[in-house]
């Protein structure tokens, strides 16, 4: 069976390997440039963190878009490898031949699905590792590895996405028994689920930490924390998000009078008077965030969710293939 898989997939395997090699070459060439640029910035700033954050990002050029393109790699794997895996066999009726051999259907499916999922996981892992390495200087400069978009391209989650997208394609192909509808379902399903989990579920994997501080001072969570929301809260518990537009309406009239009269005139002096006034009225600043130390637990939880979903889809596939009349 393994030999058969190799024969069926050697062409697409070779193309994938060539594309991966090209991606790796581009990322490595660009990454070494960025790293050396970053080291010269580090030397010039000599440990001054304000200086570091004010430096222009060492990242620019076409290659800087490649890591974001890697967001679509899982769904491409799901479309081109996952969806046709069983559906194309049904369409061309090669299942009739394959299922009439001495190899059982379960073994046929187990070997096909097993090798393909392994290949998908390997692709996701290689691309995730390259992107993580490439993003090192950006992570160090902006402490943004936990932010949506960065979190999704780095660490171990790309492996989970790749395995899930493949499993979704395989299951959709088994149910629809036609390649094109399976491709559409894999594409739509993957994007929808990724959006729902990243936007609605991920902020709540662990209860977020909220820190209150004096409005006359300031507070920022240390390291690459993921800030979910921040703003001000009044004595009565009224929450106002960041930004003067919303704050202006909520301020006590006595504080509102202290606001700077012109758009730019004497900003810092007058604003500190407004902050003192807010302080006197019992306002506090707040930051709700996921601490930097939860980065790897979150990576683990997200990967786990996708691997579990993939396992469920694979189980469905096995049930359908085994129950189907030949």
């Amino acid at each position, binding site marked *: 069976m393994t030999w058969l898989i190799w024969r069926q997939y050697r062409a697409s395997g070779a*193309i994938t390997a060539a594309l991966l090699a090209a991606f790796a070459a581009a990322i490595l060439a660009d990454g070494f440039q960025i790293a050396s640029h970053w080291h*010269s*910035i580090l030397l*010039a*700033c000599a440990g001054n963190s304000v*200086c570091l954050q004010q*430096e222009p990002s060492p990242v620019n*050029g*076409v290659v800087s*878009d490649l890591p974001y*393109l890697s967001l*679509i790699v899982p769904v*491409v794997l799901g*479309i*081109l490898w996952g969806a*046709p895996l069983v559906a*194309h066999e049904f369409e061309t009726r090669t299942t009739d031949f394959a299922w009439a051999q001495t190899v059982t259907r379960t073994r046929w499916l187990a070997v096909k699905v097993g090798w393909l999922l392994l290949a998908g996981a390997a692709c996701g892992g290689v691309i995730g590792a390259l992107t993580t390495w490439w993003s090192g200087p950006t992570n160090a400069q902006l402490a943004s590895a936990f932010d*949506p978009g960065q979190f999704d391209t780095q660490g171990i989650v790309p492996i989970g996405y790749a395995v899930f997208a493949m499993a979704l394609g395989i299951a959709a192909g088994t149910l629809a028994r036609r*390649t*094109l509808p399976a*491709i*559409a379902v894999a*594409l739509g399903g993957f*994007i929808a689920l990724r*959006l729902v989990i990243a*936007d609605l579920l991920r902020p709540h994997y662990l209860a977020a930490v909220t820190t209150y501080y004096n409005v006359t001072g300031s507070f920022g969570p240390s390291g690459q924390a993921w800030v979910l929301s921040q703003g001000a809260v009044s004595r009565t518990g009224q929450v106002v998000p*960041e*930004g*003067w*537009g*919303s704050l*202006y*309406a909520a301020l006590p009239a006595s504080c*509102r009078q202290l*606001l*700077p*009269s*012109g*758009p*730019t005139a004497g900003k810092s002096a007058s604003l500190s008077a407004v902050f003192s006034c807010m302080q006197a009225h019992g306002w506090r600043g707040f930051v709700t965030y996921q601490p930097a130390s939860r980065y790897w637990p979150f990576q683990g939880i997200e990967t786990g969710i996708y691997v579990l979903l993939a396992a469920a889809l694979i189980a469905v596939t096995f049930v359908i293939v085994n129950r189907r009349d030949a």
Partner: protein
Amino acid sequence: MSWVVWRQHRAQAAIAAALLAAFAALILVTGVQVASQWHSALAACSASRSCGNLSGTLFLGSHAIGFLVIMTLGVPAVLGMLLGAPLLAHEFETGTSQYAWTQTVTRRRWLVARTGWLLLAAAAVGGVVSGLVTWWSGPDNGLQADAFKPGRFDIMGIVPVGYAVFAVALGIAAGALLRRTLPAIGITLAGFIAVRLVIFSGLRAHFLAPVTTYFPLGGGFTPAGSAWQLATGFVGANGQPISIPQSTNGPVLGVGLAGLPVSSLPVPCQTAGHGYLPAIASCAQAHGIRGYVTYQPAGRYWAFQGIETGIFVLLAAALVAVTFAVITRRDA
């Protein structure tokens, strides 16, 4: 022939119409919210006279819808993969081309009807999506003045129509050449991304010669409206660029990104007036040193939209011509 095309694609058309309707509903509902949020923020900031820093403090819409709007970048590629690539490849794979080509309808007419309707549908989908996104992004363009910036330019106006037509034409041509659906889908995706990247990051900035405006030291210059800023820096008397070190702890003329470190000036200026900054600035000015901003003015937005759309439509026309040559020359 149009009847055959309708019969073949009515299921796809129904699904596409349903998805478009769902997208339109989402965009319309959230777009009205964004517009009212924008108007109340404008009212509040003009009351407190703080509209100057509104772009730094106000966030319009939600992250989810904002992300969905950015994801419309992928719509043309999806059309190319799911509608364009199978159009001819699937006929070859299932052998139905042999049946279609032995009817009274000529191959050329068969191909004209099929590609014509499909390209028209792709243009319509691209236009509707882009129209919705352009309307939704109106307040955000007003707030950030970023309609010309890479990424925003690509999802608004008429360029999405050009992208959609090109992606579908690429899918059709790839299917006609490869005669198998899956490889055609792979080529369509890779080819579309590659062409988009090359034009996006290599060509677009040079459609028209950019404008460079010089400003005196200590001052600054911001192009009006939603201009696309390409570069900024300092030049000497003969236009030679002045290299600015990555970081300096020494004194700086001007502030922020428009700041010029004193250590970058000609040696006589560095010690002028014993370090008195106005004296250093007038020395640098006497040496002809000034700042510059290179940009594409906001007035060129629609010219650029037209040029980019034209390029993609021409590429699409070339691909369709290749398809016709391949199909009419092929043995049945």
